């Protein structure tokens, strides 16, 4: 899997940044795009609690990205 060749920390301008942080940013961007799309297609009408869905989706995606690293 990915974790065999992705390091736990990345050097960003010589500062060590945890790869998890990158996963966090990636998940945030992905959620932002997904959210735009969901709103544009009125899919939030089908959901009882859109904010909860957003947060849950975010944590799901973040966990997926995080598990890829570890």
């Amino acid at each position, binding site marked *: 899997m990915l974790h065999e060749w992705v390091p736990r920390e990345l050097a960003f301008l010589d*500062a060590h940044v945890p790869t998890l942080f990158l996963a966090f940013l990636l998940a945030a961007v992905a959620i932002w795009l997904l959210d735009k799309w969901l*709103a*544009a297609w*009125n899919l*939030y*009408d089908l959901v009882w609690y*859109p*904010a*909860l869905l957003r*947060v849950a989706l975010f944590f799901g995606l973040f966990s997926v990205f995080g598990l890829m690293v570890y």
Partner: protein
Amino acid sequence: MQRINHGVRLLAVCIQQATADWYRHDFPLIGYLFKYLLAAFLALWVALKMEMDQPATALLTVVIVMHFRSGMVMTKSYYRLIGTVIGILFSMLLVAWFAQDRFPFFIAAALWIGLCTAGSLIYRNFQSYGFVLAGYTLCIVGLPATLTPWHTFQIASTRLSEIGVGLLSAMLVSELILPQRLWQNIQEVVRGKFRDFSLLLGAGAPAGLNQPFLKFMQDLYQLESFRASVQFETDDARVHSTTINQLNVRFMAVSTTYVVFQRLVQRLQAQSRSREAEALLALMRPLAETMLVDGRPANDSPALVRLQQAVTDFQLGFTALFSQQLQALASQPDVNRLELETGAALLQRLASELAAYLQTYVLLVTKPRAQKIDSREFSADKLQMHIDWLPVTIAATRGALTLLILAAIWMTIDWPSGILAMTLGVITSTLFAASPAPTATIRQFSVGVLLGIALVYVSNVFWLTAAHDYVMLCIVIAPAILLTAWLSARPTTALVGAGLGIAYFLMVGFNQALGDNPVKYFNDSIALMIALVVSGIMFSLTDYATSPWAKARVLAQLRQLVVDACRNTSMTSAEFEMRARDLIQRSGNVQRQDADSVRMVEALCATLEIGHAVIALRAVASDLSAQPRKLLQHTLELIAHYYKQPGQKNQQQALQWLDHFLGWLQGGEYDQALAAWQAQPLTTQLHFIRLVIAAETSASPHPVLKQEAAYVA
């Protein structure tokens, strides 16, 4: 038995009503307090769990970004994050450049604060917040780093993580628990605006125009500030963002045209040409009658559809109605036909703009489920800004000087809490830069800070020493958080709340070591007070917004805007309108309701009147042949000249030229050179401009002004 039953039922109804009332008014506030506490506790827990240096910074972040509305929290957090990151990057640069010498360091820091203050004044809403935070971050990262330059990176990364923790907990809590959506507020403002406008239009000839116009303007900017925050909402508000913008622009157009029309009527009445005025009002009456059904504005969708139909009918039947009126007046002596035609042209514009506004309004109100609206068609009409560089420069200088003075005090007396003083000095000078009455603002904020200092004493000395675990710590900070939340939720005490929260979490004693240190406490309190005194003095010394000079300048700028409209061929009427309104809005004179605000709105209406006419004239000029176009250019140049240098001579010059031009158009040599469809709008526009300029005499700016002032009084 029956009586008891009845009593019980009555009691049940009463309790139900009271509960419903409580749920509507008080419950959101209690929910908000609860959310506030929860967000703070969450941030505190995470910060302690991760063993961050200053958990209080995370708490301060929560205090700064928490807001009643969930979407606002997201927007505020977004700009806070951007501001913080930029501030941290600049702090690191600054430390890298000037760590060895304090003079260039403080000069560069002062320049940065000046820049941030200018930015916070130029931008509206929460964008201006980003600049405040960029300045504040320099104080919490850059200044401590100067003492230990080799730790700069560590300080920067911990502050960033603490702020991140605060932001995430605030966002999470306000999104997930009892979210308060903006859509409700937006709908209320939109409906309220429509109701007010219908009542005004339905009244026929209103007593005072400036007050309603002022109210509309405030609604407009309120709606815009809501709209700026809908990007982070989950509900319909975001999808309707473009529609709201469209509504704002269209409403602006229709309200301006209405005011211009009524001013024309009032001017005719003032010149005792009541026959023309009566005829124009009679022409408008069918439109006014359709706006109100039994004295009430339309509020359900069938009524709105009927209203739209009625407006269309009015547009279609207008020509017939107009010729009827003309015939009725033909028998009367000395009736000026041109004035009627000018008014009729305005009415036609009013009707078509009203139809456009209604279309958007219906879309927004009766079909709340998202209708996709082509955003490309509308991207050009954002609310434009008019930036006046003088107050911006003053504010920037003030911010920079405040920092330099506090730095000088810090350096000369070698005082341990200098950083804290500079932090609060920078916060106040950037945060209140845009305030219309900064001295009063600072005074309110100071009350909050003093309260915070008192509260810190109690919690540091008596409570924190007894706090042994997380739960106890939460109990210790709970009163301060609740008080901050409650004060900041009410508009009248919001500043007190802000002062309290900021002072408390800047000073509370659980950063490196738990508990109290009296020396540090007194040093810190003195630091906060010195910062307040210095920035208060700076604000009162450079109080630009309330000086009479500033008002004269605003009036001069409005005239300059008219000159621009005459000379700048690329300016559209929407752009002109937005710039004029933004200028007045920013001048800070319209928040109060006094004679000054009446004069400002009066000047704004006069500017809008002439500006739109000039721009319409330019539009007509574009499809004329070369010779009449040259004459029109000359006309525009004369008008511009008059507005640049107002005076009897220039006014007479412009009026004489307009008279000549109108004379030629109406029967002279150019009658043949132009087709009737070209000559007609040209004549009415020129005549309208002539009326406006003729009414402007330096002794009494406008006859209506006295009436308006009396109405306000």
